[in-house]
């Protein structure tokens, strides 16, 4: 399978950005963005979709972490 050309890459990124924007507006609810999701999936290679999904998870986690929403777990009796 040949690597995507610049045009194909840009189409994929555009679809990804549209999908992510929809998620941003709908509080991460994927059921509201089904159409954009399928458009995203048809524009990008499968590996890239998996990669971008993981990236999205990471970015959201990073946001939460930087906003201080994670507390260290309670120390156990041993430690």
């Amino acid at each position, binding site marked *: *399978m*040949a*690597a995507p*050309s610049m045009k194909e890459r840009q189409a994929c*990124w555009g679809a990804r950005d549209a999908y992510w924007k929809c998620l941003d507006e709908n509080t991460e609810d994927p059921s509201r963005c089904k159409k954009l999701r399928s458009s995203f999936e048809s524009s990008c*290679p*499968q*590996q890239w979709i998996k990669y971008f999904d993981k990236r999205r998870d990471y970015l959201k986690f990073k946001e939460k972490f930087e906003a201080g929403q994670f507390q260290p777990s309670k120390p156990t009796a041993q430690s």
Partner: protein
Amino acid sequence: MLLLVWAPKAWHRLSHLKPSALLWTPGGKARHVRCQLLSSQGPGETGRQSRPQGPGLRTRLLITALFGTGLGGAWLAARAEKEHRRQQQRTEALRQAAVGQGDFSLVDHQGQARCKADFRGQWVLMYFGFTHCPDICPDELEKLVQVVRQLEAEPGLPPVQPVFITVDPERDTVAAMARYVQDFHPRLLGLTGSAEQVAQVSRSYRVYYSAGPKDEDQDYIVDHSIAIYLLSPDGLFTDYYSRARSAEQIADSVRRHMATFRSILD
């Protein structure tokens, strides 16, 4: 020493003290005052005694100063010599590194064999990636090419050769590289090779890479370290730029290196 300063009054006062009390003062003084007491005939004698001490002391000081300067000069000269020798050793080590270290034998995107010596005399900005890369490689290459364009636009600066080396030799054939590099810059040179050749060049430049698991389409992503390397016209590794640096910052840094560069190979 301080007695010298108060000399005139001191002589007068000291002359009233017993000779033994003056035994501990600096040699010359005690002798002088004793002479003064012993030969208590008039100022003429004391005058005669005191005069040789003044210039005598001055001469002594002068000689000490000259000697000190001589010593200081010798020390500085020895230090400069040592520094010079150290520089020569370092230059020699760099010369050897320039020839041997970081060498590679790869094939460019037009099928020509290339090794590091081919780039002698040119500044090189080098990036390791792969053509199936989702976003990072295109972004970094775009940034790299922006730097090249910025520097191209400045008169009087030597041209910078952009180079893209694959860490995915299995898929990135010469044709694949040719297709990829054309999207970025006409002078962007793609380099590929056999698995061993790519392993060798990645080792030379300390680039980590690891192909991920294949999916149903036999597609996979290669995890790799991300950096843009700057090589000097002598072929020596000069600087590297992480993802965090902007094109302007990199261009500034390259400009600075160009300004201070002095070849050790010619």
